[in-house]
């Protein structure tokens, strides 16, 4: 799977309010979701993101793996992330 990229146009606040200027859609993201989006925007690889989360939170590999994939699918579905940069 090619690396997903967060669209550069989105605006996200520390409190998890995410806004997409081109569609006007807004979303609410929980703190750990904000952290993952930030790491991806910094250009971190999937592996690096997972490593960071695993070291910081009380969670096992398998659960994170599953939740991470689900979260990224959601980002894709909501057009927050894409396989190519727009």
């Amino acid at each position, binding site marked *: 799977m090619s690396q997903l990229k967060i669209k550069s146009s989105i605006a996200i606040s520390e409190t998890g309010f995410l806004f997409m200027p081109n569609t006007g859609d807004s979303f*609410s*993201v*929980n703190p*750990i979701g904000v952290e*993952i989006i930030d790491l991806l925007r910094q250009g971190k690889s999937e592996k690096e993101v997972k490593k960071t989360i695993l070291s910081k*939170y009380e969670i096992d590999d398998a659960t994170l793996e599953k939740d991470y994939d*689900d979260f990224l699918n959601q980002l894709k579905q909501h057009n927050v992330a894409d396989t190519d940069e727009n």
Partner: protein
Amino acid sequence: MAKLRYERPVIKKLNTNFTNKYGTKTEYSPVTHIEGVAVKDLISKYGSPLFVISETHIRNTYKNALRAFRTRYPKVQFAWSYKTNYINAVCNVFHQEGSWGEVVSGFEYRKALNNGVPPDKIIFNGPDKTDEDLIAAITNGSRIHIDHLDELYRIIELTDELKMRPKVAIRVNMNTGIYPMWDRFGFNYENGQAWEAIIKILASDRMDLVGLHCHIGTFMLSSNAYAVAASKLADLALGIKIKFNKNIQYLDMGGGFASTNTLHGSFLPGKDTSPTFDEYAEAISTAILQSGFPPNELPLLILETGRALIDEAGYLLGSVISNKRLSDGRRATIMDFGVNILFTAFWYSHKISPAQEFSHYTEDSVIYGPLCMNIDVIRESCTLPPMKRGDHVVVHTVGAYNMTQWMQFIAMRPSVVMIDTKGEVHQIRDKETLEYLEQKEMMPQYLKKFTL
């Protein structure tokens, strides 16, 4: 450095123009304790899923119901409806509070007797009373509420054999403006059947007609229907007084008061739509008091309230088995309890709370049970914080009918505990085992062996 508590990453689209029909704010605030006892301690000791009953809640609800009626009508008696929840410990809380017993089958009748309810304080309802049941009820002097003419004739025959005078009432069905009308039970008021049955009983002179009974339906959202029903029963009782100069001792208004559960499709939560005990009491008492009885001849008012007295006192604790994403993008959560033990999920949108602290982020999710069948749906849509495998939930208002209509299907029935008024936990039913299930099975000799 200690690691932080993990929560699944979540993104949720904000619909600024709509309020969520299903999720209310309180729904996802965590419920970590029941009556001061930690949910996680209960589950670690008794397993998951687990039914929990609050004795304090039963007693408070009962006292409130009794107060609502006693402050409006001089003579009131509750009779605990066994089918609603017949775990003996639950029945006995009601009996300690002063409730008689109301039963609808032979085994329920024996349960009430075994619990120590005096036979003349047991009301025997229902269309299916066997000869054995009738003979026991007649011999013991229990109150038999006659459902149909075949039963009436059978009782007449039995009194000849037993040479005893049973205490009877008839069940009356009637139009109270509510649809559907429960006219399959008892004798109809409007078409004169009820009056004919009364005449047959009095003419037989083999039994004492002590009461008149009705049960107009269940989860009745209109208190006015009870006013109509009470007036019609009172009218029959006054007719008996005028024509036969006999006093009817009691009017039994049955059960049917709504609990605070929310019916599927209801826009408002049950707490906002169900009438209170005071509203039901006002409707019934006013109707009887205004019907024309002389004050010293007012009949005893009997109530067979079931769900409204026990529903809120019952909780079901359970655990998350898995989270899934459905093909249409909806989130699904699979719990370890299914509709086999939560029958009421078919008509109520039960409130479900997480049993641990979360951030305030929530998601809408379908809640499924663990059974391998498509109808095992606990909630079509429920707003909950992101939960992971092993997290616990509390399902609210499950005390009525679930612990009697439950079945072992794929999964067995779980344990039931009661938290007493001092916060002590008592196990009142043990979870089922394979040995228990197979106790009733027999294996023919020739089927014992096979080779594969």
